[in-house]
């Protein structure tokens, strides 16, 4: 039986590459039992038929699959992973369906070689799948993938003849339905929203047509506008950046000038405050000095007046260069004056 598990891929066990050794022994003991050589051939045929029946009765179902059994074409049961028996081939047939495996269908692109750096086939070739009209009657290129697994093996096997074609047609139809209700801007910038809506609508459609498929994921790849239009879209992006740059520069200029002006304003005000302090203090000083002097003066008015006068004269008169003392009763003094200064002045 260990051999059978190794060859678990073949559900019907038709390919009996070699017989297990124990069967040889059984065969020998049987042939020994019948002495007559006439029966030998018949018995060997019977044995081969028996072995074939046994082998087509046992089958294993892998962990990621289920086995669907039909008896004379009619569905009878679904079996879970493990070793199972059925009636021989011709009576009961087995079909295995991978129910855990996630299949992927690609639209508008094809993966050539998956890997760390996945290679894609040139998307231009699949433009007929991805080119569609948007709600504002523009054209968009929308590549996407649909990931799904088989949820109901019975429906998957028996209800729809070409499940893959159905899935592909439905996906294209639903995607265009959803994109048809969106503007080109939304198609480019709101991929997640579109994918979510497609997933809901597509699942609904697949359920209604009994494909037995459950969607795992719908994902939009890079959506774009058709190639001839792309430069103008890039121009818009550049313009947006240009706009931001201009605003940034203006703000930078603002931020360079205004704080400096604020500082200078502060300085002007502080200077005025300084002036104010200076002015008031000086006034107070002058006033107090005057008051102090005046207080003393009031005590001896006459003498203080005289003293102040004379002190001032004592300072003033020595400083002056030419001093003339004139007796008012004298006449003809002016010519004399001129004569004396005439040569010296300028």
């Amino acid at each position, binding site marked *: 039986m260990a051999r059978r598990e190794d060859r678990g891929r073949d559900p019907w066990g038709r390919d009996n590459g070699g017989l297990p050794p124990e069967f040889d022994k059984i065969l020998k003991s049987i042939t020994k039992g019948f002495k007559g050589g006439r029966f030998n051939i018949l018995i060997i045929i019977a044995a081969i038929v028996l072995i074939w029946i046994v082998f087509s009765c046992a089958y294993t179902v892998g962990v990621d699959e289920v086995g669907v059994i039909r008896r004379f074409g009619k569905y009878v049961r679904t079996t879970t992973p493990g070793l199972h028996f059925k009636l021989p081939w011709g009576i009961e047939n087995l079909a295995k369906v991978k129910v855990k495996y996630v299949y992927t269908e690609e639209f508008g692109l094809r993966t050539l070689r998956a890997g760390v750096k996945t290679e894609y086939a040139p998307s231009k070739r699949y433009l007929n799948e991805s080119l569609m009209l948007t709600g504002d*009657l523009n054209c968009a290129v929308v590549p996407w993938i649909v990931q799904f697994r088989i949820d109901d093996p019975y429906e998957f096997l028996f209800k729809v003849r070409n499940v893959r074609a159905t899935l592909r047609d439905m996906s294209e139809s639903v995607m265009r339905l959803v994109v048809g209700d969106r503007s080109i801007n939304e198609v480019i910038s709101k991929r997640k929203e579109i994918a979510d809506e497609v997933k809901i609508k597509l699942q609904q459609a697949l359920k209604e047509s009994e494909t037995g498929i459950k969607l795992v994921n719908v994902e939009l790849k890079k959506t774009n506008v058709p190639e001839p239009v792309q430069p103008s879209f890039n121009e818009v992006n550049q313009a947006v950046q240009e706009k931001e740059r201009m605003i940034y520069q203006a703000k930078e200029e603002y931020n360079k000038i*205004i704080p400096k002006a604020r500082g200078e304003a502060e300085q002007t005000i502080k200077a005025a405050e300084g002036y104010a302090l200076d002015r008031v203090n*000086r006034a107070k000083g002058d006033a107090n000095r005057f008051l102090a002097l005046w207080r003393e003066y009031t005590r001896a008015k006459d003498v203080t007046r005289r003293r102040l006068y004379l002190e001032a004269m004592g300072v003033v008169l020595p400083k002056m260069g030419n001093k003339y003392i004139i007796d008012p009763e004298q006449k003809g003094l002016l010519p004399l004056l001129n004569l004396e200064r005439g040569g010296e002045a300028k």
Partner: protein
Amino acid sequence: MRGLVIVAVVVLAIFVIFSGAAFVVGETEQVVITRFGKPVREPIKDAGLYLKVPFIEDANFFPKNLLEWDGEPGQMPTLDKTYILVDTFARWKISNPLAFFETVNNEIAAQKKLDDIIDPATWNFITSHHLIEAVRNSDRKMDIKEVGVDETYKKIVAKPIEIGREKIAKGIMEQAKPKMAEFGIELVDVRIKRINYVGEVQKEVYNRMIAERKQIAEKFRSEGRGESSKIAGDKEKELKKITSVAYRKAQEIKGKADAEATRIYADAYSKDPEFYSFINTLDIYKDSLDKETWLMLSTKSDFFKYLKKYYTE
């Protein structure tokens, strides 16, 4: 002897199987039994093992599951005279195998029948509706950049949706479905797979998109310029505000100080204005008279009165 019996049974079984007396109907099949070409009995619709009279009766197998039909993309004008390519697909099943057997007979012929009926229905619906009706499905509000859109196009896009794509497809189906029924075919659904502009129209649309984007780009640039001028204006205004407010405050502070000083001086000097002018005048003499100054004094002045007499009265 027993061996012979076994052999006889086996031979009989082989005969039954290979003569066509027994046949298996699969889950995806249905069968019409005919005797010399003439249908007999009810068609078999359930899967299982069945018997018929060998050689005389024939089992005609038809698929029971959902079948596909993929239409050829057809070029047609919409009501607003835009030429588009419409690619439809349909799913159908043989609901009445007997009728199917009698009227169509095989699947290839059925596909032809579907072509003949769905294609004209599609034409009818597409040509009697505006393009927008076939593209859009609802009146969902779209995010459209309003700038750079020319007026006629704007009007086309802004047109409220009366039926939409799904209902057009449904209409096509409803028109085709009764016609298919007489062939024993149940049309399960018809959907529009692809709608695209034909070559010439596509070029025009691309040009319109390019023009539109260029205007949008121009709008962003001018917005940038506007915004930046606004900021520059703000800067100028702010600058003037800051300097003038500072000037005003400074003047106010100085004025207040001047007033304060004036009050202080007035308070002090008003005690004795005459004395104030006396000492201040003396101070000014001290400061302002120097050797460039000529002084002519009369002997009658207070200062020189002693020069003439040693005393005064």
